[in-house]
């Protein structure tokens, strides 16, 4: 849900919102649509967006990584080019939900106003409100090098060891969940099963993590020479859990990959100035 910038006009069209600047549609236009599925990368969205008739592309900007005022992940980029020899700029702003995205696409026809138009679009994206709140949520980390990633469902991802299935090591990255007292114990109990913690647990140890995050790893003996390592990290609001299942013979190498991953976990962004987002929730409906 976006708010119409001061002086701009907005109209609902084709399931989305069309925004026209004070100077009129000859200056440029923005289109906003939300709840687009499936989730896709910024470059894919840019590549598949319909280009204006006669569009000739000249330059593509790097992709900016943004956080909205609600603390949602977003991306922003633009393409410069021409339509019938008139310089134009196309803008792309994306706000990512769990399994959908909201997309703001625009085109500006006045080269001396490209930067201002772009800034307006970027500002709209930053203020875009979805009211998703604190929830079960995926987080950003760097994938272990050489491991094969599979998305199990909306929230979970599995990473298979480079020589899987000869090496049956699998890292499962679970979604972050809001901190609840006693959650760590429940998770550990679930992995240990009926075995007593003294028999099953090996050397819990502190884990290296980014600022604001702190945590421990727990190694747990399993049947048939297998073991599980749980990495559990928390910040003030969220609980992050990554699980490695491996065979004893491979455990050292696999744990190195697990630690490589956990050291790159980024804490989920916090909500910013919620007052501004609050205005975005309703304005385009009551205008």
């Amino acid at each position, binding site marked *: 849900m976006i708010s119409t910038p001061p002086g701009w006009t907005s109209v609902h069209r084709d399931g989305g919102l069309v925004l026209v600047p004070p100077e009129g549609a000859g200056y440029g236009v923005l289109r906003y649509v939300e709840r687009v599925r*499936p*989730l*896709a*990368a*910024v*470059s*894919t969205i840019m590549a598949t967006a319909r280009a204006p008739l006669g569009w000739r592309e000249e330059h593509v900007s790097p*992709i900016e*990584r943004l956080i909205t005022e609600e603390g949602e*992940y977003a*991306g922003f980029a633009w393409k410069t080019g021409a339509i019938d020899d008139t310089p134009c700029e196309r803008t792309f702003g*994306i706000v*990512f939900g769990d399994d959908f995205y909201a997309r703001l696409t625009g085109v500006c026809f006045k080269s001396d106003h490209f930067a201002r138009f772009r800034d307006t679009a970027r500002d709209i994206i930053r203020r875009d409100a979805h009211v998703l709140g604190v929830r079960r949520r*995926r*987080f*950003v*980390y*760097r*994938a272990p090098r050489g491991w*094969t*990633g*599979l*998305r199990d469902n909306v929230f979970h*991802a599995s990473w*298979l060891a480079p*020589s*899987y*299935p*000869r090496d049956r090591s699998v890292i499962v*990255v679970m979604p972050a969940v809001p901190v609840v007292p006693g959650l760590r114990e429940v998770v550990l109990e679930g992995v240990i099963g009926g075995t007593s913690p003294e028999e099953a647990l090996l050397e819990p140890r502190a884990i290296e993590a980014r600022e604001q995050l702190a945590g421990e790893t727990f190694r747990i003996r399993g049947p048939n020479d297998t073991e599980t390592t749980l990495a559990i990290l928390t910040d003030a609001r969220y609980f992050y859990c990554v699980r490695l299942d491996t065979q004893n013979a491979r455990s050292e190498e696999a744990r190195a990959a697990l630690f490589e991953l956990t050291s790159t976990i980024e804490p989920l962004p916090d909500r910013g100035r919620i007052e501004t987002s609050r205005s975005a929730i309703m304005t385009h409906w009551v205008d």
Partner: protein
Amino acid sequence: MDLVLAIPDRWIDNGVSVQIVAPQPIPFDPRAWLIQTLAGERRQVAQIIAARRLETRDGWIFDLHLVRVESQVHVVAIYHLRDHLAAVIVSGERRPPDLEEVLAAARPDWRTDDIVALDDLWR
């Protein structure tokens, strides 16, 4: 996700046909799925004559079945790819001598358009 299998030209030249059934979530009854894949609704005309378990070069388990459907005998390899099954159905008058070797070279291709790590969103 796909199953990658290099089919030798000599197989085609010798009248061998190969059908690859793309990976899909493991069915409740894999044998029933196999029969249905081969015989459709006429399940009673298909019969598994023999089966044995083998391993691909990379270590994936696959079950090799000989299945008679009316007068024809098919070789069906069912690959166990974590929570998916894929199949290769080899049919023809004569069974290729390098059948097992070729089937053992099959491998899954996990490439996907899914966003596996959120980092991918900004690529």
